[in-house]
């Protein structure tokens, strides 16, 4: 039975109510104990507890490092099956581990679409064989993501899906969204909504504003997101289903979520690191690695996002990791694919919120670990309490490094952060007590 001791780090486990110098003991892939760190020259476990008395400990010295429950990215595109030239479960999991993530929830817009149990089982089988982190499939809301008829949500749940979403495209028909939420509620499945009124966003290439006007690119108004967020909150109220707003990007949508929460509705939201780091000015020069959906928004929206993170309106930081092959990015802007890879840059970008004193370290760990685990119903994840799975991220807050897109573990290199100087890095990622990344 493998025994792991992480000594002397600052353990930040908001779900366990811990923030301080502790030693973390894991046995057989589970957290066995978390004990105050004692300054002793002896590196062996110091404990009265006989179960911890053993010489066969694999010891990690985490002095000066942050030790926290493994990060869970509840919004990634692993592209397998169907688009293995962009990413595979294997390469996506490697990118996740390198970014400090011990788990990822993968969206259903594969080919075939994950709208039935056989695809879910295929993903889970591949993940077990090749994935070095936990992979949690998200099933489709509608068959083939067509927005016409419900996918087999009950069977998707049985097969192992943790939520349903037609992410990548909105559920246009309000009636179908109502059915989805009514039905998903029976299975306690979270409905994740990509909020976009395509009547307003059609043909849009970037956020609508002075930047789109200068660049001569068709804009996507914030109203296209606000309208759908308002609609979905109304349907959540009607049905009582848990609703999670994917990649929120506008000040208006954040205000709507805030109001919904104040009303006591079961509405949550996530934001991507790029939406709280970049504005639509990043597109200037026709940088296709700044093209995504929802688009990078204005400074006003960015400020509202950071405010929403700070006051708890936004529960989760998720990357919307969207690998695209270079052939889909090295083209005219209006022909380029949407999306960027995010797993390996999310942590340092998020840590800027901590160094800017907008979030405490504990709040950041909540948004990267505890909250996604809770929303996706992942028991034994998102905490380092005794009995929890030993999924652990060890972070060096001081480590300075420069992003080199060519060196990303992800199969695709579409990042707008190439060449950025970063501070803070995942230095060890542990899944079920086993080291899966060390850097």
């Amino acid at each position, binding site marked *: 039975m493998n025994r792991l001791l992480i000594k002397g780090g600052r353990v930040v486990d908001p779900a366990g109510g811990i923030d301080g110098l502790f030693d973390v003991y894991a046995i057989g892939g589970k957290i066995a104990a978390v004990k105050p760190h004692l300054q002793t020259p002896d590196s062996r476990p110091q404990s009265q507890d006989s179960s911890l008395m053993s010489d066969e400990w694999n010891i990690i010295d985490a002095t000066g490092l942050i030790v926290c429950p493994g990060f869970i990215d509840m919004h990634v595109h692993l592209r397998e099956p169907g688009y293995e030239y962009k990413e595979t479960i294997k390469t996506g999991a490697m990118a996740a581990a390198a970014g400090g993530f011990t788990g990822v929830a993968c969206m259903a817009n594969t080919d075939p679409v994950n709208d039935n149990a056989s695809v879910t089982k295929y993903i889970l089988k591949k993940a077990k064989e090749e994935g070095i982190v936990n992979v949690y499939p998200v099933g489709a809301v509608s068959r083939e993501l067509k927005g016409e008829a419900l996918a087999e949500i009950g069977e998707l749940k049985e097969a192992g899906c943790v939520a349903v979403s037609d992410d990548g495209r909105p559920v246009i028909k309000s009636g179908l969204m109502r059915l989805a939420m009514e039905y998903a509620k029976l299975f306690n499945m979270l409905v994740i909504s990509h909020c976009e009124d395509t009547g307003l966003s059609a043909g849009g290439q970037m956020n609508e504003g002075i930047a789109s006007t200068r*660049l*001569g690119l068709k804009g996507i108004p914030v109203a296209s997101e606000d309208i759908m967020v308002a609609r979905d909150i109304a349907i959540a109220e009607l049905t009582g289903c848990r609703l999670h707003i994917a990649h929120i990007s506008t000040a208006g949508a954040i205000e709507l979520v805030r109001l919904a929460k104040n009303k006591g509705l079961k509405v949550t939201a996530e934001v991507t690191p790029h939406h709280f780091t970049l504005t639509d000015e990043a597109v200037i020069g026709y940088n296709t690695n700044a093209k995504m959906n929802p688009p990078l928004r204005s400074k006003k929206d960015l400020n509202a996002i950071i405010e929403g993170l700070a006051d708890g309106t936004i529960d989760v930081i998720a990357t919307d990791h969207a690998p695209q092959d270079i052939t889909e990015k090295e083209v005219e*802007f209006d*022909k380029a694919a949407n999306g960027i890879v995010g797993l390996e840059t999310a942590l340092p970008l998020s840590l800027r919120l901590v160094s800017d004193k907008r979030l405490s370290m504990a709040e950041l760990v909540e948004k990267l670990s505890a909250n996604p685990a809770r929303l996706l119903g992942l028991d034994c994840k998102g905490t380092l309490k005794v009995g929890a799975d030993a999924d652990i991220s060890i972070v060096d807050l001081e480590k300075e490094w420069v992003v080199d897109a060519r060196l990303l573990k992800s199969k695709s290199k579409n990042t707008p952060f190439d060449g950025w100087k970063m501070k803070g890095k995942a230095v060890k990622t542990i899944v079920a007590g086993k080291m899966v990344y060390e850097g």
Partner: protein
Amino acid sequence: MRLKRKDLLGIEELERDEIELILSTAESFKEVSDREIKKVPTLRGRTIINLFYEASTRTRTSFEIAAKRMSADTINISTSSSSIAKGETLKDTAKNLEAMNPDCIVLRHSSSGAPHILARLVKCSVINAGDGSHEHPSQALLDMLTVKERFGRIEGLKIAIVGDISHSRVARSNIYGFIKLGAKVSVAGPPTMMPAGVEDMGCSVRYRIEDVIGDADVIMVLRIQLERHKVPLFPSVREYSRLFGLDRQKLERAKKDMVILHPGPVNRGVEIAPDVVDGPYSLVLDQVKNGVAVRMALFYLLLGGSREQAVD
């Protein structure tokens, strides 16, 4: 003298003195087109490729004539008769053309920003001959030259740009250019064709063209670009022409010495009445004539001389 840049992608990035240099150089080239032998040897041995992804009469012909009057060798490539029709990407087309060592590629493209991508891919000069709804710098330069010739100055003039602003690359380039040269620019058109935040480009914004033509020295009428409208942006051509088209009746409130510009091609009877476009205040054909001189100047300033002679 030459421009201290490899490419001409837009007016937005030009300094005022660069625009003035281009205009004064163009003025000096005008007489070449009036000679009996309309040719100077300046760009002998240079190769210029006109790469046009969109249909064009004026611009393509104008660039070609300009190049030929400078003694450059010109090649015209249009999408329908090239490998672009076989699905070749812009990148591959660029790399293959570059392998034949041209000195300049003139690009017309329906995608905003395509010349910027091309310019990053090739070592030769790239001139933007109109990209999507972004910029059409040589058009704005010839418009500025035409206005400067007529009024002897640009500083302090009032320029009204009317019509489909949101889809117009001509509007954007002219807003930048005329403002840089000290003119006051106002734009007018239906709100459905007014791009977000356009006032932040430094122009004033109205919706009725009657509100801008009263004190305008120059009225620039834009073509309604129906081919770029995915859905109709106004109820009918009839209503547009009656409410927003420039006709004799609306011109009654205009200054007596104002002039009218149109980048062409004209939708006669839509954005401008036939008798107005053919009227005495219309400078449409002066624009076309000046287009050749401006493009000769651009070739000269980007390709001629040596780098050491670059203007400061």
